[in-house]
């Protein structure tokens, strides 16, 4: 390990795949080279400063690890060299999945949302993916308008530098519903993973019981949002309807999975008549179609026996993908938690699962 700073103790070694690192669009102006003149003029004249919501408020300590901002006023996650020196080069990372949580879903003008999503993707291609071959990209799409999301997947989804479609975990309508199947189909057709990621600003509350008062509730509550999406995807039958569909759950934790799936399996046995297209126990669909990243790690890393129990219940060797989640900081400890991994699970979790899931060896 190199100079990594607070909360950044991580595994190092050959063959590591980091399944979640972030890039941040530094400003609306950074997108100008990738926007039509019409939109540049609109943005200049209106003073639009970029998608206004931010899943990672810059002043919140979880949004940026110390030292992860470039130091020139740009936000954490906006500089490729910082990512290189803090993650890619230090850890010996073979490949990393790059995620850009640009809040296109907050832009209510559908044409603007579409144009800006395209610009973000072209920016990712030109300034990150083209420059750093270890990075594999995630397509930003106007997820609030399924037809336009499909159009963006059709535009760039065949480019091998993109390996998944980024969908904010919070949505106006859960992603398994019929009107969204066209988006799932477009991803599957191009062998892209569908990725549900921390964040989203659909206009409805971040909790199922209404608007909370504090950021901490949205932050902690994202695990329940992930559960709701996963539950819906399974109940709607998408994993049989699209047999090659792969879904990654990114930055939503994974420790909730065993109790959630136990309940879901149990009740599927008694209630499955309502959803007869769900032909197998929900846990089997998760095992075969879903992978989860390891950050945030919602466990006491000083209790290896508790970790071992939960890891076994999750089926961690099969479904977990290691992620640093740079530049975010989830109150990680200074220890390298991956030392708790069972010996035969190290290679799968630290690289093999992600390599296979994202077809990185093709």
């Amino acid at each position, binding site marked *: 390990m190199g100079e990594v700073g607070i909360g950044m103790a991580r595994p190092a070694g050959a063959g590591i795949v980091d399944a979640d690192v972030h890039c941040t669009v530094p400003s609306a102006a950074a997108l100008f080279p990738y926007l039509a003149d019409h939109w540049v003029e609109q943005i200049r004249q209106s003073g639009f400063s970029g998608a206004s919501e931010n899943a990672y408020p810059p002043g919140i300590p979880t949004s940026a690890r110390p030292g992860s901002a470039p130091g020139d006023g740009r936000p954490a996650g906006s500089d490729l060299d910082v990512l290189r020196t803090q993650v890619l080069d230090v850890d010996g990372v073979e490949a990393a999945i790059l995620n850009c949580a640009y809040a296109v879903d907050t832009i209510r003008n559908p044409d603007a949302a579409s144009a800006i999503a395209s610009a973000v993707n072209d920016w990712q291609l030109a300034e990150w993916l083209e420059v750093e071959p270890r990075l594999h990209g995630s397509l930003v799409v106007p997820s609030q308008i399924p037809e336009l999301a499909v159009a963006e997947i059709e535009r760039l989804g065949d480019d091998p530098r993109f390996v998944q479609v980024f969908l904010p975990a919070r949505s106006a309508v859960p992603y398994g519903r019929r009107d969204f199947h066209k988006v799932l189909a477009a991803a599957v057709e191009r062998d892209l993973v569908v990725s549900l990621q921390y964040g989203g600003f659909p206009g409805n509350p971040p909790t199922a019981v209404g608007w909370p008062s504090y950021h901490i509730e949205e932050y902690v509550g994202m695990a329940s949002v992930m559960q709701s999406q996963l539950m819906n995807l399974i109940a709607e039958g998408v994993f049989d*309807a699209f047999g090659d569909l792969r879904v990654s759950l990114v930055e939503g934790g994974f420790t909730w999975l065993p109790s959630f799936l136990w309940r879901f399996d149990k009740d599927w046995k008694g209630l*499955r008549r309502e959803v*007869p*297209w769900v032909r197998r126990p929900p846990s089997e669909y998760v095992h075969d179609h879903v992978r989860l990243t390891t950050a945030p790690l919602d466990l006491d890393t000083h209790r290896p026996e508790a970790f071992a129990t939960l890891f076994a219940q999750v089926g961690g060797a099969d479904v977990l993908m290691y992620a640093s989640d740079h530049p975010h900081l989830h109150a990680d400890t200074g220890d390298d938690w991956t030392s708790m991994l069972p010996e035969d699970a190290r290679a799968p979790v630290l690289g093999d699962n992600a390599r296979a899931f994202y077809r990185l060896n093709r």
Partner: protein
Amino acid sequence: MSIHVVARLDEVPPGTRKVVEVAGREIGVFNVDGELFAVRNRCPHMAGPLCEGYVSGAVSSTTPGEYHFDRVGEILRCPWHQWEFDMRTGQSWFDPARVRVRAYQARIASGASLVATDEAPATTTDAAPPAEGMVPGPYVAETYPVSVEHDYIVVDLLSR
């Protein structure tokens, strides 16, 4: 000694069921449009009274939004957790390889066939066992002595 007379046929008309006790175990006898099924009244999950559950058909699908509903009357749901079982085989719907309830062969036999081979009416439990090795159950001797005139439901505990 595995074949037991469990009920008179007219006690279990089509669309109904009757839970009987045979050789120390409770068995539900179901008449589905004249076809008879017998299932142990003990769910393999948590020993619930399976045969008191809702009787329905099989719901299946090949794609979201599509429903197939058939085999009406042949799928039994445990009243405790709604697990579904196929009356014909005893196999559960969701895990037929591992979760199954004991199902028995049930059929109709005439009274005449159940009595002694000399065609004398069976009037007591001491009657000689019939040639097929059937063991007369409680209804034959004690409730319906004029048994020869009726059809009976017989269950084979060793079948299936």
